[in-house]
Every structure is written in structure tokens, then in C-alpha cells.
């Protein structure tokens, strides 16, 4: 086994342990925990047994695993950008609501 493989597996295990802790503190939901578990399990499997990556990518009809990784990352990034956009829009609206509340509470006349 390459040193790189060991590092990747150790890192993934460490990251997964963080996810367990966050779940225990109720900082993330069960759904989010499952999501991260799938992500890190995939990382560990492909790092430990690189040939599984071939099986997975062939399953998706993509010849090279690296191509599949790129496709999935792009999709994931678009989704995350969209989520950030929605969240920041909500934040903007909440800020406006707060500013409006303050303004309406203290009208000033001469």
C-alpha cells in the first residue's frame, strides 16, 4: 500500500469521526450524516481498492474514473453555489425585515 493511500484513508476516517461527533452534538441532521458517510466511504473504498473506481465509473457508463469524478464534482459545485445563493438571498431578506422593523418602530416627526 502506498503512503498516499494510507494518508487518504486516515484523513477520511478522521473526517468521518468529526461527522459522528457533530451528529452526537445535534449540529447536523441524520440526513447530513448519511451524506457525509457516503462521501467518506467512497473516498476510503477508492483509495484502498483503486480498481473499484473502475467498476463504479463503468456502472455509470463513463470509461475513466477520473472523468466521473470531474463530472460529479462539477454537478456538486453547481448545487452548492445554488444553495449558497438561496441562503444569502434569505439572509438579505431577513436583514431588510429587521431594518424595516426598527424603522417602523421609531417614526420621527418635527
Amino acid at each position, binding site marked *: 500500500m502506498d503512503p498516499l493511500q494510507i494518508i487518504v484513508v486516515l484523513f477520511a476516517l478522521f473526517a468521518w469521526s468529526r461527522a459522528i461527533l457533530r451528529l452526537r452534538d445535534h449540529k447536523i441532521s441524520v440526513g447530513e450524516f448519511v451524506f457525509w458517510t457516503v462521501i467518506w466511504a467512497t473516498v476510503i473504498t477508492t483509495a484502498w481498492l483503486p480498481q473499484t473506481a473502475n467498476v463504479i465509473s463503468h456502472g455509470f457508463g463513463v470509461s475513466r474514473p477520473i472523468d466521473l469524478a470531474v463530472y460529479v464534482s462539477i454537478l456538486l459545485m453547481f448545487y452548492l453555489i*445554488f444553495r449558497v*445563493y*438561496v441562503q444569502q*438571498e434569505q439572509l*438579505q*431578506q431577513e*436583514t*431588510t425585515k429587521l*431594518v*424595516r422593523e*426598527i*424603522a*417602523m418602530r*421609531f*417614526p*420621527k*416627526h*418635527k
Partner: protein
Amino acid sequence: MKKDAFIVIAAYNEEHAVPKVVAELHKAGYQQVIVVDDGSKDNTFPAAVNAGATVLQHVINRGQGAALKTGIDYAHEQGAEIIVTFDADGQHRVQDLQAIIKPVAEGTADVTFGSRFLGKESRIPLLRKVLLKGSIFVLWLFYGVRMTDAHNGFRALSRYAAQKIRITADRMAHASEFVEEVHRRQLKFQEVPVIIRYTEETLKRGHGSLAEAFRILYTMIMKKFLLR
């Protein structure tokens, strides 16, 4: 009619223009003037208070759409029967108020929009004219509403319309949102000929610039396709 109308003005860094506009409105008999100071960096707030308006202050700048909504909500809370949105920088003429309020006061419309393209002469700069025609097309494309003008900010709402219309766009896209809401809530609307005064001051501010037009379009697309 004048007694029932609340005039809502959103002002950002308009310390010189606001007192003049408020004084003109008072002189014409409109006593209920609400100025929303949208987090101005200059003395708009004290200037508007001294001019005799009711002034609400946004502690930070939230944009014209947000400021107008604050003023409309407040006017509604105060029992306004008719709410007019009016510009702070002297683009709108007090003489046109009567015409824009009339259909709402008589109940023939829930909302009236001022239009620069209905007869009266407004001397509109060419680039702006192209952008305006473009936005009219976009309004038709997005909401199926045929307007002769858009984005001039001069409108009157009935109490009922003010209650129904929900403005969520904080910045300039609120003008299109008004049209969208009128369409969505199936409110009766009318366009009224008005004259918009283009002064050097208003042109310098760059309202109606190409960049702004694209920002509005972007917000409209995001709202229509992603946030609904």
C-alpha cells in the same frame, strides 16, 4: 382625495432634493408625506424631519425597493386609503399627482402606473429609451403584461392593493416586481400619462444605466426560475 393620499418617498443621500420635494407636496395640499431615509450618509434624515415629513430611518442601506416597502407598510398601518410612490430627486411632478391618484380614488383601478410614453413629452435620452423599451418587452415576456412604460417609480396603490402586493426585491428590480404582483394578484391597473424630468443630477446617478438594466434582469431571472 388629497387628504386620503399618503405620499411615500424613498431617499438615499438626498439632503438637498428632499426638503424641496416635501415642501412642494405640502404646498399642493398633500399633508401625509412619508420619507424613508435609506441609510443615507449625508443629512437626509434631519433635512426631511425639518421639512415636516414623517421620517422613517433604515439604519443601513437596503435599496429603493426595500425603502418603498417600508413606507408603504407604514402608510398602510396608519390607515392610508391611497398610497403614492414618489421620487426624492424631483423627477416626478406634483402636478401629475392628481391624475395618478384619480382612478384609484374612484375605484376604477387598484393600481396606477405613470407612463412617459402616453402622450406627454418627457425628453428621454436615447440609451434610456432603448433600455425602457427593452424592459417593457421583458415584462411582457415574463408576466404577459403589456405596459407602455416601466421603471419610473411613479405609482398609486389602493389600500387593498397595498395589502396584496408583496415586494421582496430590495433593490431596483422592485419596479418589475410591482408589475408582476399586479398581474399575479389580478389587480386592476391603469397607466396614466406623466412627465419625468431628467435633470443632470438624476442622469449622473446612473439610474437606468445598462449595467443596472442587466442587474435587474438577473434578479428577475433568479426570482422567476430559482426562488419560486
